[in-house]
């Protein structure tokens, strides 16, 4: 008879997640399951609606990255109408997207990753949170975080028409442009964002990289998996969040190919398991071999770390310096240590801020040519962007009036479902030992296995009261509760 430990739910606002850990009679981990209740019927919900509604509708799927869905759907709608938006439109979209990235990556680092490193993985739970971080590092940091978020939201509002849930991207471009005055305002905010990103990297260097215990934790085996990596790159194979081809590299770091959005079905397939509704995407050319590492396993990862591994570098100068330092410090490419994703995320933060400044520095971004009127018959199209937490694919087919007849979405986190499951399993097996009491710090170390992926499971429900406390129930062989851990 096995014992069963349930960590439920680990998350709230992005939908529930539940970790189940089954112990054998010896008290060792027999198996782990990471379950996510699927939000049902979204693709069906899209059918029968005009394609131009998709950028508005899909940004309601998720409470965390509506901007990413807005962009992927808009790019898919461009493809459906066979229209190439003018340069100004592409710049505006990428500018909005860069500012969004700054907001999103900032939040993850300071609210989620920060506590584990600034306070320490085994700090009391009452202190291991963003309030603890602010208390320890200073109120000034909290103000910077709020300011970074404010600037990001402001840019999204100026270009996207409203905060958080933008509404201006349509097939062929945008419904509105920006004024020269707005461009200059955006530029000034971007310059501050660059300084903030550099500050964040320095903070990481001072607190994490100069602490041997943390470096050992990052480089240790508990949080390491050797898988394939994917990420969008530009024509020079540098990381790009908005446009390009998806680069795929093997566990040795060799690029096995790049695919354009419309080619995604040749590269990505989905595996089904009986214990969960969510599917596990894998590389079709390699094949599904189970939840295992290595070159023969089609499991791939799509995260900030993956994007760095799948690219040859960063397109902006300061981020490129950090990119080089990252690989020099961690022993070359690719980096497989999942906790290094937090560092990779900060390098992306700097890139996003620098790109924000680059785009806002070009007067053409405030030009009048922000839309090309579609003239062709709508058919079918795929749009891909890099959501902060992974490659996001939107695929639509329409009738001749542009009414959606079929929709398929592979969202950021879904890419990582297999690697997240593997990471939880490995951490649980390593940390839960025979005869040892399972404590809160141990559970946090298991949670730390999935935190680098910044998982987001799809919905924008904000149903009060928000969340049940994290609860772990350990049952004996008779199914009786012998230990309950709550936070």
């Amino acid at each position, binding site marked *: 008879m096995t014992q069963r430990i349930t960590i439920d739910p*680990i*998350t*709230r*606002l*992005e939908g529930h*997640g539940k970790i189940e850990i089954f112990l054998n009679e010896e008290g060792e981990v027999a198996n782990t399951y990471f379950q996510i*209740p*699927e*939000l*049902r*019927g*979204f693709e*069906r*919900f899209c059918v029968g609606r005009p394609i131009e509604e998709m950028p508005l*509708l899909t940004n*309601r799927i998720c*409470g*965390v990255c*509506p901007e990413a869905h807005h962009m992927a759907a808009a790019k898919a709608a461009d493809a459906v109408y066979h229209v190439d938006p003018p340069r100004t439109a592409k710049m505006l979209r990428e500018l909005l997207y860069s500012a969004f990235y700054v907001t999103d990556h900032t*939040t*993850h680092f300071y*609210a*989620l990753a920060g*506590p584990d490193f600034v306070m320490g993985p085994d700090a009391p*739970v*009452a202190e*291991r*949170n*963003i*309030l*603890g971080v*602010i208390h320890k590092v200073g*109120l000034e940091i*909290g*103000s910077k975080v*709020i300011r970074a*978020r*404010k600037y990001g*939201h402001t840019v999204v509002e100026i270009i996207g028409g409203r905060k*958080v*849930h933008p509404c201006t991207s349509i097939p062929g471009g945008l419904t509105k442009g920006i004024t020269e005055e707005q461009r200059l305002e955006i530029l000034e905010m971007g310059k501050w964002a660059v300084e903030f990103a550099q500050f964040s990297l320095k903070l990481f260097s001072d607190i994490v990289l100069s602490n041997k215990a943390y470096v050992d934790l990052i480089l240790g085996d508990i949080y390491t998996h050797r898988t394939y990596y994917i990420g969008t790159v530009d024509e020079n194979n540098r990381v790009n969040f908005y446009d390009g081809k998806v680069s795929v590299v093997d566990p040795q770091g060799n690029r096995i190919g790049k695919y354009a959005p419309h080619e995604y079905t040749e590269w990505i397939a989905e595996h089904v398991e009986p214990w969960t509704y969510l599917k596990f995407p894998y590389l079709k050319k390699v094949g599904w071999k189970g939840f295992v590492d290595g070159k023969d396993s089609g499991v791939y990862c799509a995260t900030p770390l993956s994007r760095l591994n799948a690219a040859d570098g960063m397109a902006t100068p300061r981020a490129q310096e950090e990119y080089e330092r990252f690989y020099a410090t961690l022993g070359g490419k690719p980096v497989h240590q999942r906790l290094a994703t937090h560092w990779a995320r900060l390098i992306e933060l700097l890139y996003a801020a620098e790109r924000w400044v680059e785009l806002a520095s070009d007067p053409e971004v405030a030009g009048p040519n922000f839309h090309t009127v579609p003239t062709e018959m709508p058919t079918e199209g795929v749009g891909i962007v890099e959501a902060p937490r992974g490659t996001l694919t939107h695929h639509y087919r329409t009738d001749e009036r542009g009414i959606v007849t079929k929709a398929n979405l592979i969202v950021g986190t879904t890419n990582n479902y297999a690697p997240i499951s593997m990471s939880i399993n490995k951490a649980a097996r390593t940390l839960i030992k025979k005869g040892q009491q399972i404590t809160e710090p141990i559970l946090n170390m298991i949670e730390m296995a*999935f*935190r680098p992926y*910044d*998982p*987001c499971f799809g*919905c*924008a*429900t*904000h*149903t*009060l*009261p*928000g*969340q*049940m*406390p*994290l609860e772990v129930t350990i049952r004996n062989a008779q199914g009786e509760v012998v230990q309950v851990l709550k*936070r």
Partner: protein
Amino acid sequence: MRTIVIGLGNPILGDDGVGWKVAQAVLQRNETESRFSLLQPAGCKEMHHPCPVEVECVSLGGLSLMERLIGYDRAILIDAMQTGQRPVGTVHVCTLEDLPNPSAGHSTSAHDTSLMTALEIGRRMGLHLPSQIDVVAIEAEQVYNFSEDLSPPVAAAIPQACQAVLNLLKSIYDPLEHKESA
């Protein structure tokens, strides 16, 4: 005294959209009855007089929701609630403090924090945040299926929830009007 009424939730996720529908009902009732002549949709800048009450519908939580509350003295949040303890469609009025902080200072979600924790962060930053946040919650049934429709008991609760919001506004503003006339 600036007050914001916020309908929370996801309008395409079944009963989770009830917060929006109640907020819209509040605006509509206000128009027909001129109950609060100073009530207006948030972001409406063409008003001829200062407006103390704004109404908005958003899909936000945690830090983003806290940021939306900056600058207001009072706030009323309308949202779906799933306690499993009350019949579906029950309207429950309380203050935010009455609800358990789901995270107890810990990160609630994989990507954000709870509203309570976010508010504490904001207050430590010295941000101007509402001194009191009232909650009008409607017990929900279905929040995991994509749909623009509410389940019937939840839809039937809209007038009652709307009235609860108006009563709260009355309790906030009537004493003020009383003082001014005196």
